[in-house]
């Protein structure tokens, strides 16, 4: 790990202690600069959760305005440290990183940040303790640990957080609570008949939904609450997708029945690997389950967007690599424009052409 100079890198994300983290990073860089007599640079990087060709304008704008704000804060802090007219000891750079890939877990984020740090010769990373890219599931190593494992000097900014008052067993906010509660309550009422007016039933419904929400809301909802319009559009497109899927399932079963009942058992089992152009929990799950339900294919393993598929009947592999299902799933979750994409077979041939 090259740590020439005393440059500092700060991964930036929306968090309530960001302002004080910036101050701390600037102080660190200033101290290093005065000790060594060489100007240092503070790199503010925003690890993106989108991919450059799937760009959501709103997310990009939010990232850029956050970075602008951070640089302004840093300049203010530096002015306070050295006085208005002194020559500046610290430079600032800012940028968005990780737009070329799908970053997911803390390890992915650490990879992206680490690569940037290596490329720019930064050895010291200041992390904001309340910025948790990739989540903070207990089974995963934290972002800080992942970075420290990669040989960086990781400093946690000494910032204090406001304590938040929480409902027991949860750390969810009111909108999440309301969403899970109303869903489970409506489901309870639906099971009891649509028009329940009996106060006893309503009361048991409230109690049941309350218990479900308190214990399971964290499992039911992951990350930020999705926007209603996006979900609405997806639901409408999912309704269009369902008949196509049902038709595929019918075909799959006729094909399988033919194979199974044929005296010679004409199967051609093989294992197929491919990278799907979908990402995120819901789209990948939908695609994986759709593959399992359609002719001759069964999803064996998925890691990020790499699919391992077992194909049973002779034409199954071809169907899969034609990418019809993939296009449909992209249509459901990303809209009509995104559905026009090269099939997995064409993409496979392209990459083979590039690196023979």
């Amino acid at each position: 790990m090259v740590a020439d100079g005393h440059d500092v890198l700060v991964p930036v994300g929306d968090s309530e202690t960001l302002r004080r983290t910036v101050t701390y990073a600037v102080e660190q860089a200033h101290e290093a600069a005065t000790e060594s007599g060489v100007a240092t640079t503070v790199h503010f990087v925003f690890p993106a959760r989108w991919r450059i060709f799937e760009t959501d304008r709103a997310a990009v704008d939010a990232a850029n305005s956050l970075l602008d704000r951070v640089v302004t804060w840093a300049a203010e802090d530096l002015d306070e440290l050295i006085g208005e007219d002194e020559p500046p000891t610290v430079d600032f750079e800012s940028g968005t990183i990780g737009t070329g890939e799908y970053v997911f877990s803390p390890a992915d984020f650490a990879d992206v940040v680490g690569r940037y740090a290596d490329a720019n010769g930064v050895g010291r990373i200041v992390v904001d303790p309340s910025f948790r890219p990739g989540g903070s599931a207990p089974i995963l190593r934290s972002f800080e640990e992942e970075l420290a494992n990669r040989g960086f000097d990781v400093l946690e900014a000494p910032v204090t957080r406001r304590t938040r008052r929480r409902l027991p067993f949860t750390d969810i906010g009111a909108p999440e609570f309301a969403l899970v509660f109303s869903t489970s309550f409506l489901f309870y009422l639906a099971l009891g008949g649509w028009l329940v007016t009996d106060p006893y039933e309503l009361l048991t419904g409230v109690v049941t939904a309350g218990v479900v929400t308190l214990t399971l809301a964290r499992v039911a909802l992951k990350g930020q609450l999705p926007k209603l319009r996006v979900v609405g559009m997806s639901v409408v497109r999912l309704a269009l997708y369902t008949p196509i899927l049902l038709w595929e399932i019918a075909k799959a079963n006729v094909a399988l029945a033919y194979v199974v009942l044929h005296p010679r058992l004409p199967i051609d089992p093989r294992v197929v690997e491919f990278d799907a152009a979908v990402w995120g929990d819901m789209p990948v799950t939908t695609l994986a389950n759709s593959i399992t339900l359609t002719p001759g294919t069964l999803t064996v393993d998925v890691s990020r967007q790499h699919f391992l598929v077992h194909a049973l009947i002779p034409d199954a592999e071809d169907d899969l690599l034609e990418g019809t299902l993939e296009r449909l799933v992209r249509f459901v979750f990303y809209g009509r424009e995104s559905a026009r994409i090269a099939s997995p077979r064409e993409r496979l041939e392209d990459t083979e052409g590039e690196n023979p």
Partner: protein
Amino acid sequence: MTPLEIVATVFVVVGTFFGLVATVGIIRLPDLYSRLHAASKSDTLGSVLSLAGLAIVLGLTTESMKLVFLVVFLFVTSPTAAHAIARAAKEEEVEPIGEGEVPWTTDQEEGNS
């Protein structure tokens, strides 16, 4: 029989047929992965068709509502369960019959360089 009952009967009969196909498939197919095909596909359609047939007979009632919920949940859980079994088999390095190599460790596990 009313036409609706005839439709329902057809659904249940076809559903039962696919249930039978699933059973025959599990017995006849050669390895774990192939058998999962029968278990995940035919079984799903078999139960879904039978339940749909019953829902048609019951008409628009709370009971048929529950059957519809069952259909939806089967569509979600059945492939997921098949995937879980297939994945467990892969982790245990169960060798499939046929062409193609199973990569026992994925790129991700080999380390991010």
